[in-house]
């Protein structure tokens, strides 16, 4: 391993490859800030460039840099504009955006940068040490376990429901699950619930829905509230520093989430989205009573958890890609295509046959993370200045980018109608004080939940898999506990507050 590490260091530290990492990170960050252009499309755009380089190590280093940059850029638009362009950064906006609204945009971006850096770096270390061993762990997961994992992900919704909001959150989750059934599923040959409209045949697109639910109502709220839109939220933007107390608060979160996120990322079929939701839910459950109240209203822990987890998961997803040749996500699937085009065959033999590629990629992950941090920390005050723009100039800007975001990936103008339609519905729901995040989570997880469930049903000719596969049962029990324990605790606290003795 030491020998491999040295080869990797030598390859990664050549001037050309350093430039590749830096260039990749920059391109990724800037394009990634535009909602609608996630890592997948940016990598697809960069593949011809990477292939012209000819050298597979350099190409992969460039693309890995773009990947990290894009994910970081995505968090920026989540925090500043409430416009998550990628499913993996949806959870970032839960606490990141409230922080930005409260004039702490700079601090939020700093926490995001540091958490991303820590998540990515710890992920890279774990990748280096465990990659060979983990490839077999990833294969322990069958469809039944993925189904159970999605249930655990859904149970995280208990974490997004404030007091007395459980019923509303549940309702929104179910609405999201229902919306996920529209279109042609992976398991059925015929379109469902499309009302004969060809544009609904492939279902609602994630980006359109995310923009309609988060970004558009935000812009509409600003329009309807002229007093607030008269001036920007400037003031405390320069306040980037994290106090010692805050650093102590997020340190254990970062530690836990970088490990948890990495292991979730290793599973092909789970990935950064699940990692970020679970990270958020777990940290909320672990937080003290006081801190839990802040979640959803600008908690630094709530921001740090998903940011750490999604970056660690991205690194984790390289385990099945490099050691098994299996892409764990859309993005790694595109990377796999690029690798094959460069005559590199990822698989168990990659580490033996072409160690310089394997190790150079791992080393460049460290460098990429470090460079992202160095580039971004000094840039944060400038990026955060976006919010200092008077609202009446910013609103058209947000509207433009949300519309562009939902149009650009598919070039389908109907997306714009869907965007506006759902945007208005979402605004109404927000007035009625319904939480919208559970809707999006239900939508994202719904398809995967259904697919894995019906696959398991088919494989086992019924629901026998729940009992036959111990890991499935274990995960389902965990999901049950995630829902029951917090509500039990809340009930007990309420009972105690009302002066009713509860036995202890």
């Amino acid at each position, binding site marked *: 391993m030491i020998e491999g590490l040295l080869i990797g260091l030598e390859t990664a530290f050549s001037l050309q490859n350093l430039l590749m990492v830096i260039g990749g990170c*920059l391109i990724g960050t800037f394009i990634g800030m535009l909602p609608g252009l996630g890592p997948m499309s940016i990598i697809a755009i960069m593949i011809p460039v990477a292939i012209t380089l000819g050298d597979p190590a350099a190409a992969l280093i460039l693309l890995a840099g773009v990947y990290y940059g894009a994910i970081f850029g995505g968090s920026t638009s989540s925090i500043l504009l409430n416009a998550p362009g990628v499913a993996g950064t949806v959870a970032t906006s839960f606490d990141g955006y409230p922080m930005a609204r409260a004039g702490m945009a700079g601090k939020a971006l700093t926490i995001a940068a540091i958490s991303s850096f820590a998540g990515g770096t710890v992920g890279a270390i774990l990748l280096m040490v465990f990659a060979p061993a983990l490839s077999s762990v990833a294969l322990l997961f069958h469809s039944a376990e993925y189904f159970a994992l999605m249930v655990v992900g859904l149970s995280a919704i208990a974490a997004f429901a404030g007091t007395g909001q459980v019923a509303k959150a549940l309702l929104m989750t179910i609405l999201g699950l229902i919306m996920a059934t529209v279109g042609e599923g992976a*398991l*059925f*040959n015929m379109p469902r619930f499309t009302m004969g409209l*060809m*544009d609904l045949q492939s279902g609602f697109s994630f980006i359109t829905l995310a923009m309609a639910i988060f970004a558009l109502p935000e812009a509409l709220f600003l329009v309807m509230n002229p007093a607030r839109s008269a001036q920007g939220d400037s003031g405390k933007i320069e306040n980037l520093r994290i106090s010692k107390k805050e650093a102590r608060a997020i340190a254990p979160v970062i530690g836990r989430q970088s490990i948890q996120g990495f292991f979730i990322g290793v599973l092909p079929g789970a990935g950064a989205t699940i990692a970020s939701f679970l990270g958020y839910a777990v940290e909320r459950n672990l937080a003290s009573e006081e801190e839990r109240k802040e979640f959803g209203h600008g908690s630094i822990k709530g921001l740090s958890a998903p940011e750490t987890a999604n970056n660690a998961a991205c690194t984790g997803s390289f385990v099945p890609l490099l050691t098994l040749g299996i892409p764990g996500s859309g993005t790694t699937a595109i990377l796999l295509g690029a690798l094959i085009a460069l005559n590199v065959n990822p698989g168990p033999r990659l580490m033996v046959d072409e160690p310089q590629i394997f190790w150079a990629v791992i080393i460049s992950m460290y460098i990429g993370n470090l460079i992202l941090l*160095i580039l971004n920390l000094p840039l944060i005050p400038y990026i955060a200045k976006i919010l200092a723009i008077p609202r009446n100039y910013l609103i058209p800007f947000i509207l433009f980018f949300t519309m562009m975001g939902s149009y650009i990936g598919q070039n389908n103008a109907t997306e714009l109608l869907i965007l506006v339609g759902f945007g208005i519905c979402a605004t109404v729901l927000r007035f009625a004080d319904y939480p919208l995040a559970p809707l999006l989570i239900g939508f994202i997880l719904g398809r995967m939940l259904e697919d894995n469930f019906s696959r398991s049903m088919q494989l086992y000719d019924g629901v026998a898999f729940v009992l036959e596969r111990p890991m499935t049962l274990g995960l389902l029990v965990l999901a049950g506990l995630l829902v029951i324990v917090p509500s039990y605790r809340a009930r007990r606290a309420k009972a105690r507050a009302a002066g009713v003795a509860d036995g202890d």
Partner: protein
Amino acid sequence: MTLKFGRRAVMAAAAAMSLVGPAFAGGHQVVESIHFLIPGGAGGGWDGTARGTGEALTGAGLVGSASYENMSGGGGGKAIGYLIENAESNHGTLMVNSTPIVIRSLTGVFPYNFRDLTLVSGTIGDYAAVVVSKDSPLNSMNDLLDAYRADPRGTAVGGGSVPGGMDHLVAAMVMQAAGEDPTGLKYIPYDAGGDAMAALLSGEIQALSTGFSEAVALADAGEVKILGVTADERVAAYADAATMKEQGIDTSFVNWRGFFAAPGLPADKLAAYQDAIAKMYDTPEWEAVRARNGWVNIHNSGDDFAKFLEAQEQVIGDLMRKLGFL
């Protein structure tokens, strides 16, 4: 300092990107320009085919310039509808498509079929293959069939398409040709080839129906054994893989990709497009694109293309009726 470096890298990358596009026009230009209509989003198989073909055509100087338009919606149906409804103004447009246009027209998902369009040519294709993981005790199609006969419910075959989609139809076609009831096969669908591959390696499914080029990449990496390929003769790219036919299973299948034009396209324009594509095969630019993507040249122009599609429609239609999808 770091910022400067970065800017230079961006500029270098931008310069590299612009090198990919432009044409080094030769003196033998056949068509002035082609507008490629891609019925799916960026990054998919159709997108790669159209952009790769455009790159080779312009690079070799056969076509002056190429432009691309992604029009997704309805699993490709929207672009077909657009091309038919706006036929008059789309004489400069070529739409890329592949086997699913046949399957989806049969199921009625599309209100149109390939006869409503002008057939230009089929350009590339990929055979299908049945693979098992490298540790599997199965070593030939006969081993797999024996295992299936011994335990039909416990021998699941997976694939990256919906039931009634291509991977399922290939598996069913093979079972039928081997004398089994194709409806008895337990087919497990996955979202994409990668997910199905993971399921094969984890032992969730016993065999996988997939594209041959994908199978070759996995076999080269030492992950899978190819039990059979649906070509008529062994394929040079991986000559170790036995064909279905030599194992006594009389079936063959090609997943083609090709180009269509608007209905009512003038004959001279059609001839020019077909000429440009025919000449493309001899150029080094095409060879580079083809090799990079692992495509197999399967060229069917005009009437040959129509015959090929009709034959495929017949075979697939019969099978789908038998499977109960029609």
